[in-house]
Each structure stands twice: as structure tokens, then as C-alpha cells.
């Protein structure tokens, strides 16, 4: 996935579109990157130029990117499951069609990202094996269950909202193929977040039990959504983490804590509009900081889920493996067909040649 020129840069992206995104889009438009900058990795980074697949790059940079892009890709395809769970039970044909389109988008996002990872010299098959063997991780958020229909709303609104907040800065990532994949992903995510908001909006204007269902979903997804930004990485907590190196490499543009704060600031007014009470008694506006203060995240739970002890970890990988195995016959059939066609073409070619 190296290109995004088909996307009209003048079209608004989504709620998280900010000056940062505009800067990324502008960066893509620049045509004068050839001036005055050498081909040296450090010089390119210093000039805020993109690194492209065949450029020389440090091994650590390559490895870090492969790990991050792979985890991101895994998160997209594992992320198909929680909502896929509701396709057969969506409350209307309209909702069902939307949900199918959304889950299909997640598969597409996985593909863009696996393609970006492959430009670094790794095979997609190898990455899938690492996922299936538990050697590589995916976002912890997908290890929580979708218990009610309202969870589909909460996922779109909160989880996709947090994902957008994380992903928009990645549109400016120093590695070209990753950045371009993210522009495309962000564009498509805006529909995901809006449809989630709409589900909750409708429920909140429904019966008492529908309102309760929406509130319950928000109660369960709020804290895991905040944890999606990763552990604290500013101040004392920054020491020994990956953040500093990733920032120096231009892979990461904001700290986890900064992004989390931006997310909270964006979501509080939206929750008020919905009539949903966010499950944090410590949530209050801080006039001095100009931001919303919020309570402590349960990092023990985060690490526990990441290690594999979440409600759905085993189920997600089991399902993923089964889907892959049960699809084997489709791949075999495609191979057989391709082989037959190739043989036929060769024979026709030979006939033509011998006739001539």
C-alpha cells in the first residue's frame, strides 16, 4: 500500500482531523523533497522526509516498524470478531448492511497494513503464523466481549474514536508505506465512528431499557478505550519505554498520555450530547490546564489482558485459526484454477508457435 492519490485531500477526514492531519496531507503534496537532502537515513529524518522501502535504514528501525505494523494489522483482523458477532442479530436490515461493510473495512485495513509490513521484507504468511502462535500481539481492547447490541455502538464511538486519535498522527509517520496506509485507514474510520455514535444516539432516545443498554455499554468500554493509548509514557514513566526512540525515528509523533488527554477532551462533550454518563467520578474540567481531569486507569487489568488473561483472548485466537484453516480449501481451489489456466495458456501458445 504505497499510494493515496485517489483520495481527495480537500475532503474532510473525520472528527479527529486536526492541524496534524493537515500537515500530513500537505507533506504528501510536497514535490521538492529532492532538494538539498542526501539519501542518508539520518539526513532524511532530520529534514522530515519519508523513508521509502528500498532506502537504507537501521535494522532496529526496520524491526520496530515490522513489529508495530504487524500488531496493527493483527488488531484490524482480530477486530472483525467482536462486531462480527452481531451481524446475524443486527436489529434491522440497514444496521446489518452497515455492520457487514464495517467488518469488511477492517479486513481491508488489515490488508493495507500487511502490505506495508511486507515492503520491509517480511512475508505476510510469516506474520499470520506469529499471530496464530501468540508470538505477536494485537490490541487488548478486542479481548472484551460484545454482550449487547449497544456494544456495537460503543465500539464504533469509543474504540474507533480512540483508534482514529492514535492513527491520525501516524499519517505523518516517517515510513512512507505505513503513513500512506494510515491516510486511507483514517478516511474509512470516520464512517465507523459516526455509525457507532448513531447507534447510541438512537438508543438514548428510545425506551428506558434501550437507554440503560447504551449506558451499560459505555460503562464497560470507557476504561478499556482509555487504556488503548498504552501505558503512561511522560515524566517518570517515559524512562525505559519505546516512546523516546520511536519519537526520534518519527514513527511516533505524540506521547500516549497526550493522545489520551486529547481523546478525553473530545469525548466528554460528545457523551453529554448523547446523555451518557461516563463512568468516572473524577472527571472534571480543569480550568488551569484547559483540559478534562480524569481518574486513574487500572493498569493491572491492562497488563493482565495483554498477557492473555482477558475475557476473550483464547476465543479470539481460536476463532482466527479456525477461520484460516476452514478457508484453506478456497485458497487451494484458487491455486488449482490458476495452475490450470496457466497450463492452458502455455498449450495454446505452443500450438500457435508450432502452427506458425
Amino acid at each position, binding site marked *: 500500500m504505497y499510494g493515496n492519490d485517489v483520495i481527495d485531500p480537500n475532503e474532510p477526514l473525520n472528527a479527529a482531523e486536526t492541524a496534524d492531519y493537515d500537515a500530513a496531507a500537505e507533506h504528501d503534496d510536497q514535490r521538492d523533497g529532492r532538494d538539498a537532502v542526501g*539519501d542518508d537515513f539520518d539526513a532524511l529524518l532530520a529534514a522530515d522526509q519519508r523513508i521509502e522501502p528500498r532506502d537504507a535504514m537501521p535494522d532496529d528501525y526496520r524491526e520496530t516498524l515490522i513489529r508495530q505494523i504487524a500488531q496493527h494489522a493483527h488488531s484490524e483482523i482480530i477486530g472483525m470478531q467482536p462486531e462480527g458477532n452481531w451481524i446475524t442479530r443486527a436489529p434491522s436490515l440497514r444496521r446489518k448492511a452497515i455492520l457487514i461493510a464495517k467488518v469488511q473495512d477492517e479486513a481491508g485495513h488489515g490488508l493495507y497494513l500487511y502490505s506495508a509490513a511486507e515492503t520491509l521484507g517480511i512475508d505476510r504468511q510469516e506474520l499470520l503464523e506469529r499471530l496464530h502462535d501468540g508470538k505477536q500481539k494485537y490490541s487488548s481492547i478486542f479481548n472484551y466481549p460484545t454482550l449487547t447490541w449497544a456494544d456495537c455502538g460503543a465500539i464504533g464511538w469509543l474504540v474507533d474514536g480512540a483508534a482514529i486519535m492514535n492513527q491520525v498522527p501516524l499519517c505523518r509517520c516517517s515510513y512512507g508505506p505505513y503513513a500512506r496506509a494510515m491516510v486511507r485507514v483514517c478516511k474509512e474510520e470516520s464512517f465507523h465512528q459516526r455509525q457507532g455514535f448513531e447507534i447510541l444516539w438512537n438508543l438514548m432516545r428510545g425506551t428506558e431499557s434501550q437507554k440503560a443498554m447504551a449506558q451499560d455499554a459505555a460503562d464497560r468500554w470507557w476504561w478499556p478505550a482509555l487504556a488503548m493509548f498504552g501505558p503512561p509514557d511522560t515524566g517518570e514513566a517515559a524512562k525505559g519505554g519505546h516512546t523516546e526512540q520511536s519519537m526520534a525515528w518519527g514513527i511516533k509523533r505524540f506521547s500516549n498520555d497526550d493522545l489520551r488527554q486529547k481523546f478525553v477532551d473530545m469525548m466528554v462533550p460528545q457523551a453529554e450530547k448523547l446523555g451518557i454518563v461516563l463512568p468516572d467520578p473524577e472527571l472534571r474540567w480543569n480550568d488551569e490546564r484547559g483540559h478534562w481531569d480524569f481518574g486513574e486507569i487500572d493498569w493491572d487489568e491492562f497488563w493482565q489482558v495483554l498477557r492473555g488473561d482477558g475475557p476473550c483472548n483464547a476465543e479470539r485466537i481460536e476463532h482466527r485459526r479456525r477461520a484460516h484453516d476452514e478457508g484453506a480449501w478456497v485458497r487451494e481451489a484458487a491455486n488449482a484454477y490458476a495452475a490450470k489456466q496457466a497450463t492452458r495458456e502455455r498449450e495454446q501458445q505452443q500450438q500457435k508457435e508450432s502452427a506458425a
Partner: protein
Amino acid sequence: MSGATTPSTGAGAPSEPAQGERSWPLWEVFVRGKRGLSHVHVGSLHAPDAELALRNARDVYTRRQEGVSIWVVKADDVTASSPSEKDSFFDPAGDKIYRHPTFYDVPEDVEYL
């Protein structure tokens, strides 16, 4: 169908094949956004043959009417200039600034020039 299950071409396979299933060849995808525009590279995908590459490209890259025409090209069939030879390769154009219209000194009060 033992023989038939291997991919028809190993052209796109990496030098060290992943254990188990082998990856399909890689195809580069080019999309014409609308009439009057060139095909532009939008990404890549794996597929066993050109026909499936085209269908998958439609599903992956034009789900929102982003295109009116698609090309797929096997990645191995693309010959690319080398980044390490970039300087010597593109240098010849470097000292020929007279190819740009701004090179020329002309009076300011001449219209349509």
C-alpha cells in the same frame, strides 16, 4: 490434485518461503479515479492469478467508488531504478535549468509570455 495445488508461478515468492503455505505472488494495483485522470498506484495485494488479483483489487481499493478502471501488474514484472544510483541516474538533468521557463530574463511589461 497434489500437483495442481502449488501456485502456478513462484515468481512472487520470497527467497525464503514461509513454512506451510506459500504466499501468492504480489500484484501492484493502479486505479483510474475518474475519466481524464491517469491510473495511479494505490497499493498491492496477493493473488494466485491476474483475474483474482483484479477482483480482490476491486474489493480492497474501490469499495467507495474510488475508481472507474483498475490495472494489476505482477510486482516482479516491475523494473525500478535503484535508490543507491539515484544521484548518477538523475544527475544529467541537474545542470539544465534552461529547461525551465523561469530561467529566462524577459521584460516585465510583456503580456502573455
